[in-house]
């Protein structure tokens, strides 16, 4: 069975510093997408960034970037210049292209940005 693991239940970072959230996954698939979603206290699920497995280049969206290591099955999220509004739970998710778009989520990492 495919699984997604986020081994850091909680993390904290000082405002303006950089933090990295970890995610590993287990699959025999070769074609898939990976995502990071953010869930602030409002509970809304917000897409942060997306990575296609066939792309070697790591995805970047403003202050958010990923380190995608396909062989190691690792997909970490780096947040630069952390802001108070980044305080949220972050979920790593895996999309199997051979399985009608079923997203598999990790357990989540709660990130607190401290002033």
């Amino acid at each position, binding site marked *: 069975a495919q699984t997604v693991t986020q081994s850091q239940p909680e993390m904290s970072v000082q405002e303006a510093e950089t933090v990295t959230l970890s995610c590993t996954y287990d699959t025999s698939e070769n074609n898939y997408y990976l995502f990071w979603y953010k869930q602030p206290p409002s509970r809304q699920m917000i897409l942060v960034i997306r990575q296609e497995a066939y792309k070697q280049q790591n995805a970047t969206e403003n202050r958010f970037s990923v380190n995608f290591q396909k062989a190691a099955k690792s997909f970490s999220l780096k947040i630069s210049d952390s802001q108070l509004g980044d305080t949220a739970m972050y979920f790593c998710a895996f999309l199997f292209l051979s399985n009608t*778009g079923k997203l598999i989520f990790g357990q989540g990492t709660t990130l607190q940005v401290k002033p």
Partner: protein
Amino acid sequence: DAGITQSPRHKVTETGTPVTLRCHQTENHRYMYWYRQDPGHGLRLIHYSYGVKDTDKGEVSDGYSVSRSKTEDFLLTLESATSSQTSVYFCAISPSGFNEQFFGPGTRLTVL
């Protein structure tokens, strides 16, 4: 923001009663999904739909049924609610099965 609404946003009900949650989209996306979110589990797929009247089971489908009679609406029904179904329920939509999913605001359901 993707045009997705969920109703009701909060509901408290008693064990054994039927409950229906509604997801409505204005994006005309083909795929719709229902997830539940519980502490320590992330989000888990309950059921999904890949077109009108086309649905299939997800990871945690026991005790739930769904219906989709129109592209824009996807209903989740708990035939006889149990306390284990207390959760936050999210609807999501996607233009195809091979894209990111966009989520509704969630429904908090409490079964007493």
